[in-house]
């Protein structure tokens, strides 16, 4: 279970395992960069970059989940995301949260 709230609705947090995070830096190939450059002449959604960031975020989350599983946690609460551009056409995605053990509340 992954939530961005401090508690999990319908569940009790029985143990806090610690901070977990995952990051990734990804880029699209040059063709997509050129496509985005052309699209930006008129403005509007840059689909190639939207895809890139959504894929990267999924990857970063996957790594965060892997870290949580390594701690024997079954949920991550208070998840936050950050994005930063580190070079033209490349972005770093970072996801972090607190790994916990939760059980359905009675």
């Amino acid at each position, binding site marked *: *279970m*992954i*939530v*961005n*709230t*401090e*508690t*999990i*609705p*319908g*569940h009790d947090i029985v143990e806090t395992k610690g901070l977990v995070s995952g990051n990734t830096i990804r880029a699209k190939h040059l063709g997509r960069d050129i496509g*985005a*450059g052309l*699209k*930006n*002449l*008129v*403005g*509007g*959604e*840059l689909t190639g*970059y*939207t895809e*890139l*960031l*959504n894929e990267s*975020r999924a990857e970063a989350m996957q790594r965060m989940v892997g870290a949580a599983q390594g701690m024997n946690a079954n949920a991550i609460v208070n*998840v936050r*995301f*950050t*994005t*930063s*551009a580190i*070079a*033209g*056409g*490349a*972005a770093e995605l970072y996801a972090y949260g607190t790994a916990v053990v939760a059980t*359905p*509340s009675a």
Partner: protein
Amino acid sequence: MEIFLAIGLPLLLTIGLPILFSVIGEIIERRHEADLARRESAIVDFPVRSTSPTDLGRVDVELLSSSVVIGTGYLKQLFASFRTMVGGEIVSLTRVLDRGRREAYLRVVEDARQRGGTGLINIRFETSDVGGQKPSSEILCYATMIREL
């Protein structure tokens, strides 16, 4: 012919093309806004909160997120740079970011409905600059979906 090549062509490239691009951009923008309004009217009754209530009873939870990268367009960027000299609201850019934010929000809500969610809590928005030299912004929207059991 030579006069056309010497004066007309550079003029066409420096003034004509940006105007053409901004006209196309305006058409895309209006279509997008109409599409957003149509989709928004379909989800008005879906409960979304930016708070995180704890008294929800027994529910299933899931984190949903969606991001949209939206480019401002060449001419708008140029106008914005003029506008920053005199100050004031940059309406054209407000519109661009508003479109991106509404799109990201709609994708999250539509995703929640598709997954059988009954509401979204603790919704958050984040904006970051991702384009490098290309002026564009990423708008991220994420929330915890609840599904009543």
